[in-house]
């Protein structure tokens, strides 16, 4: 039962435009201002300009180089006339003519030489400027990313963020590098040619000028259509790429459900739709050149005809006609090439807008943030690890509350466990403690200081986390563990690995601790990756520790083996544990049973069993089966 084209487009275009969210229990939120068309073009250009303006003096040099190279080309084509005239002048003796020919050629060589050098310099400097500017743009974007809250990453897909770095900035680079120089050099040559034209013949200039509105009209007519088709092509492309991405990722499920035929049918619909839209976009994109170019040819023809008639009736000189005809071609060339660049400009501006859109997001901490006196005092004596949640209510979006009136206190060095079904809000609580998200009502304090008064980096340095999803970086095993504390010695890294029971498998890797992990540690099993994550947390000296399903993929036998290590890890740290396996949490100092965002039961393992409530049910639900 394949879906209709409309449905597919709606679904996959949306998926391509406004991407997925992250983990936890929250729902997806859309971010406003994501549509493709550039809106405040002036402002965007101004901001882009700021990146180039740093190289003001270089740009001045570029401009001077352009002046030289363009005028050398103009001069070069003009100087041919005197050459021919001297050589053809049979009234002077042959030797003299030869001498003057040699002189003019020497002069031309110089002019051309200067032109070539100038154009090379201009290109070279411009390349450096544009590459430096795009490097700066990339760096700024990346640095900005580091300051953005987790919420932002929930609402954007990785692919969407990455395409800012590649496609969008590439388009900007292209515009700065080629379009900008063409714009300037085109303008210079336009003015230069125009001057020569007026100098040669005012009447013929008038003829050429009369063609300008026609060229502009034709250009904008085609540009309008081509940009319309371009937009619809991009959206069709977005839909088909979104579809391909999802289906290829789910290829194994497709096979298991014999769904290949449907999939092909749906794909064909999208492909056929794209075929039509692409045809329009490619066609209108392709005719810009021929239409404008040949309009110029008509202009050339009219110039030739009128010039010829001028010779007959107004005594205009023959050489002037041929020179002028050449100019009329020269004149329209920059107009042509610029009108062909419109799509690059559009793409670059739209890309710049997407880039700036990220740069304008609210960062986690704005610069004006200062720690309160309490927080400063806390910093000077060091965090002990007393965590208290008072009447905490939180939702990822206002319509849906995830946590309701949570109250709990964790004394330093104690172990608090959260139990409950997925979606009950366990992960959310831990995300609030290290301020991945900020709460709306209630308060969270560490050693009595509200965490909103403490700077995020300091708070996070004091909370080590082992996350549900294991994440490793490209680099050696050693580097990955050391990520938890950059100044740790090799011995400390190995010690941490031993604590997490990772040492023995690391030693079995081909290069031991120097084995390079690639692609999120694809060469390791899920369980081994979790052990590395634990080691990474173990090396940090943070007094607060969060273990979110830290051993879920470690098989139960190994889990048993690492128990000692885990005990050592948790010693003297305030620990929050989330686990499915109740055996993992039963020795906690306090167990919180969460349901629908509320703590419905709390106490030690024995107390909870005695209560004969939900925990008892969960626990015996398992035991009963034994």
């Amino acid at each position, binding site marked *: 039962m394949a879906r209709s084209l409309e449905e597919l487009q709606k679904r996959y275009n949306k998926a391509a435009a406004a991407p997925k969210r992250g983990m936890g229990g929250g729902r997806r939120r859309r971010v406003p201002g994501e549509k493709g068309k550039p809106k405040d073009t002036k402002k965007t250009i101004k901001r882009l300009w700021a990146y180039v303006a740093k190289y003001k003096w270089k740009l001045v040099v570029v401009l001077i180089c352009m002046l030289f190279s363009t005028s050398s080309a103009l001069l070069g084509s003009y100087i041919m006339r005197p050459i021919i005239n001297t050589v053809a002048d049979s009234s002077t003796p042959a030797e003299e003519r030869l001498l003057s020919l040699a002189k003019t050629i020497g002069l031309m060589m110089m002019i051309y030489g200067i032109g070539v050098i100038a154009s090379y310099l201009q290109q070279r400097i411009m390349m450096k400027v544009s590459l430096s500017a795009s490097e700066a743009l990339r760096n700024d974007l990346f640095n900005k990313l580091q300051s953005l809250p987790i919420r932002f990453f929930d609402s954007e897909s990785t692919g969407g963020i990455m395409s800012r770095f590649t496609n969008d900035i590439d388009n900007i680079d292209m515009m700065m590098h080629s379009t900008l120089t063409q714009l300037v050099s085109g303008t210079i040559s336009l003015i230069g040619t125009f001057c020569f034209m007026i100098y040669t013949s005012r009447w013929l200039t008038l003829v050429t000028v009369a063609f300008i509105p026609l060229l502009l009209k034709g250009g904008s007519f085609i540009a309008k259509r081509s940009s319309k088709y371009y937009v619809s092509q991009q959206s069709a492309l977005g839909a088909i790429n979104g579809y391909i991405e999802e289906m290829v990722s789910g290829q194994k499920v497709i096979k298991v459900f014999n769904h290949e035929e449907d999939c092909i049918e749906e794909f064909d619909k999208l492909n056929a739709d794209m075929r039509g839209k692409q045809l329009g976009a490619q066609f209108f994109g392709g005719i810009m050149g021929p239409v404008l170019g*040949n309009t110029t040819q008509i202009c050339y023809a009219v110039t030739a005809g009128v010039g010829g008639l001028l010779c007959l009736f107004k005594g205009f000189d023959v050489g002037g006609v041929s020179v002028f005809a050449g100019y009329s071609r020269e004149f329209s060339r920059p107009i042509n090439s610029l009108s062909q660049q419109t799509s690059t400009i559009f793409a670059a501006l739209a890309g710049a807008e997407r880039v700036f859109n990220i740069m304008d997001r609210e960062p986690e901490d704005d610069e004006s943030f200062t720690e309160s006196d309490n927080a400063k005092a806390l910093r000077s004596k060091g965090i002990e690890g007393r965590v208290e949640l008072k009447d905490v209510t939180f939702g990822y979006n206002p319509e849906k509350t995830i946590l309701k009136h949570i109250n709990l206190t964790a004394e330093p060095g104690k172990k608090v466990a959260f139990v409950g079904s997925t979606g009950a809000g366990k992960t959310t609580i831990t995300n609030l403690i290290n301020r991945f998200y900020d709460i709306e009502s209630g308060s969270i304090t560490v050693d009595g200081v509200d965490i909103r008064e403490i700077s995020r980096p300091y708070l996070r340095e004091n909370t080590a986390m082992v996350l549900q999803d294991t994440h490793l970086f490209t680099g050696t095993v050693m580097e990955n563990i050391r990520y938890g504390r950059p100044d740790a010695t090799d011995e400390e890294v190995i010690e941490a690995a031993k604590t997490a029971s990772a040492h023995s498998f690391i030693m079995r890797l081909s290069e031991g601790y120097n084995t390079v992990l690639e692609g999120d540690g694809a060469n390791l099993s899920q369980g081994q990756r979790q052990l590395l994550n634990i080691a990474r947390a173990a090396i940090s000296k943070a007094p607060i520790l969060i273990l979110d399903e830290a051993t879920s993929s470690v098989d139960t036998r190994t889990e048993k083996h690492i128990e000692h290590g885990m005990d050592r890890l948790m010693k003297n740290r305030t620990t929050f544990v989330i686990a499915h396996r109740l055996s993992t949490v039963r020795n906690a100092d306090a167990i919180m049973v969460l349901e629908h965002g509320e703590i419905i039961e709390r106490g030690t393992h024995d107390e909870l069993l005695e209560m004969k409530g939900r925990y008892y049910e969960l626990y015996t639900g398992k035991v009963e089966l034994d």
Partner: protein
Amino acid sequence: MKKWMKYVKPYAAYFILGPLCMIVEVIGEVIMPKFLANIIDYGASGEDISKASAVIRKIYEIAGDRSPFIIAVMCAMIITALLMMIGGVGGAWYGAKASVNFAADLRSDVFRKVQKFSFANIDKFSTGSLVTRLTNDITQMQNFINMLLRMCLRAPGMLIGGVIMAILVSPTLTTILLISVPIVVVGAVLFIKKALPRFTEQQAKIDAVNSTVQENVTNIRVVKSFVREAFEKSKFGKANSELKMSATRAMSIIIALIPAATLGMNIVIMAIFWFGGKMLINGTMTTGNLTAFVTYIIQILSSLVMVAGMFIFMSRAFASARRIREVLDEEIDINDDNISEKDSKRAVQQGNIEFRNVSFRYYKDSKEKVLDDISFSIEAGKTVGIIGSTGSGKTTLVSMIARLYDPDEGQVLIDGIDVKNYSLYNLREGVGFVLQKNILFSGTIEDNLRWGNQDASMKEIRKSAAFAQADTFITDFNEGYETVLDQGGTNVSGGQKQRICIARALLKKPKILVLDDSTSAVDTATEARIREAFADELKDSTKIIIAQRISSVKDADLIIVMNDGKITGMGTHDEMLEKNEDYSEIYYSQVDRKEAI
């Protein structure tokens, strides 16, 4: 090359008409200056018309006088320009038609091919690279074809036309070409040779920047929780400046190309002026011919540069073509090609399963076997639990039942018939699979469930969902079964996702149901209810359950314990507890500690 003809043939007309249209433009471009010369010579200067060509003489005769002649030639020029415009627009039209259709057909073929891929084929290419091949690489080829069709006759046409005209004007001066052209060609080749590796290097640096961003974004929680933003910034800064450096290296070649070509061209022109000027003084050359000759030489050299540019573009397109070819030429290791008429009609009847000495390795040349001489049989309607540590081969084992992988040695039989003697379609219709990596597709929950059975009534859908303990939470959603899932089902929790996946498989009413560690995120009580539903509603189906928890498999009719690709024990819970060390060790790691000691 031959293999690509498949995509050219249906659109052969466009592939031919496109360049033909462009030829009109080229011819026009060559003759337009000639028209101008006629206006100047016979119209404005009033030279002797008898020296003109036949066509021009005819026009002059009809026009009668010099000024009508000028107007007539001008009209001819305008008509030529209009014809050129039509040619250019036609060329764009056919070029677009040819390239778009070529790409659409190719994309469709590659997609179809991927649909035929077996699991082993999919594993070989990564998902990301398949997506890039289907999108970027095909677009690259499409752009190349579009350009090729519009340029392929243009550049060589200008080149050949220029050479012919140059020889006609002055054979002596043409000898300059004999010296300069080889230099230009050698220069261009050197440029390309030098540029290509630098482009490849730049591509690698782009990949490095991309993967740094990707890693950072996916690991952002780790970065933030360990406060390593500054470290990440410097890491990115390094990758970024390396990209800039390699881009500079690549670009500086391209930048040098244009000035170098201009320089070369200027030198040639100077040489022509020098030698041509001498000839002019000697009286062996006319002024008009000298200017014309220069025009042709410029034409020849610039079309050479154009061809060189095309080669750079081409080498990129060829890289893409190779990557696409790899997908299209990939040998599908599991297919229906050798199945008999009778076999193709056979469906799974009961669900008896037998493994006979099955061995398997992922790569043909790897030493380590994933499965090593596995033999067992299961009667239809029974429940089998498979347990064992990660990497012991459980998933691979069950995959063989639906021929997701084929064994290297041995046989898998269903109802006494080798699985290879079923059509893939019928075999997979008979087997319901809940994969370890659950995937839901963007669409409503109902859409997703219907993957199991497209014609199911709403009642049946709700019933399956109820068995999978999913109906309650689905109806709790504001839009119930109409709730739209995001790609990958990221807007439902892990446990909910697993239950939807189970419901999806149940809707198939399969003879054999395989659950590959697919209740790990479901709490034990709910899981127990799901298993109860299996026992009641899927009485006749064979159920295979892979699990981590002993409780998930404890009640099974048969428990298989695996370790390192081998079966280390088979039996019921009580038997295994007594005789199998692995099993009892797993068991005691999961029950009460005190009890274990």
